[in-house]
């Protein structure tokens, strides 16, 4: 089987989470973080046919609480995570698809309230391993999303 092509990305990129119906979300590419993180302003864990799942709400754009996406994902863990400030918190960990430059692969992400943070999503090392490499001096190598595309279609 051919090895996946390694993609060069900047420290900020627009990526897609197709299983969560999120076609574009700005992510901070964070080599300092082991696990990826995704904003959730509410979480509702539940079971479906014995499988642990979770419903959660996401405001995908910074400073915008009008545009919201209701998501549903598979839960793989509930564990203590330490953030960049040394603050420890128990978080749900989901497994879902990440799409970058036409390539799709499964990643784990912890759900946490990032309402006051600049980036709704952090892309951590386990998601990047053997898939992407990072140029810390450049941004949006995958393309920039015009602000007009962020509004929902009426």
């Amino acid at each position, binding site marked *: 089987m051919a090895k996946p092509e390694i*993609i*060069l990305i900047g*420290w900020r990129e*627009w990526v*897609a989470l197709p299983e969560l*119906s*999120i*076609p*574009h979300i700005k992510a*901070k*590419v*964070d*080599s*300092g*973080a082991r696990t990826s993180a995704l904003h959730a302003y509410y979480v509702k864990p539940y079971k479906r046919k014995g499988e642990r799942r979770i419903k959660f709400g996401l405001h*995908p754009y910074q400073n915008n609480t*009008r*545009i*919201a*996406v*209701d998501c549903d994902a598979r839960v793989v863990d509930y564990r203590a995570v330490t*953030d*960049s*400030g*040394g*603050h420890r918190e128990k978080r749900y960990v989901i497994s879902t698809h990440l799409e*970058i*430059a*036409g390539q799709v692969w499964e990643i784990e992400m912890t759900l946490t*309230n990032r309402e*006051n*943070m600049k980036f709704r999503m*952090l892309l951590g*090392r386990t998601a*990047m*391993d*053997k898939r992407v*490499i*990072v*140029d*810390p*001096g*450049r941004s949006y*190598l*995958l*393309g920039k*999303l*015009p602000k007009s*595309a962020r509004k*929902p*279609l009426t």
Partner: protein
Amino acid sequence: MRTIRPVMPWLAFLLCFGTVLPSLSAEKQTIGWAEQVTIADQEVTLSAKMDTGATHSSLNTPELHLFKKNDESWVKFAVARQDGQILQFEARVVRMVKIKQKGERAQVRPVIHMVLCLGNVLKKVEVNLADRSKFDFPILVGRSFLQDEFIIDVSKKFTTTPHCGTFPETDAMIVPK
């Protein structure tokens, strides 16, 4: 509360950009997510985490003392070498930075200039002095150091050892015993 509809034309637009690898990054060196760095004219070697999520670098200094020198703000702090020896440093405070953490009161930490050596790259950058004693790495290297010379491949670590020329004179000085 409105739900967003997938925007297919823009997704195709984004995908087109992703298939072309920019050649501008080609001459940079690829390093891992953790590397050895030296500070203070190669007196101190530390294991460093490359942090593309941080603008500036951060050094573990659990105890520091602010004082005035010639009407300027200075800071005295200690750094432990890998052999366990403690070295005292003094540096001029460039500015104070407010570090905002989730659900906690903002902390104010001093920022100084330091010269770091990673591979054969020597650069003077801003470093904030933080309490990193709970963390795995004593120093984080941020984007202001890494940009222009480095690409980070997180599947690798400790790919290089510091080998720079003489350090230029710098604000952060070792205090002689």
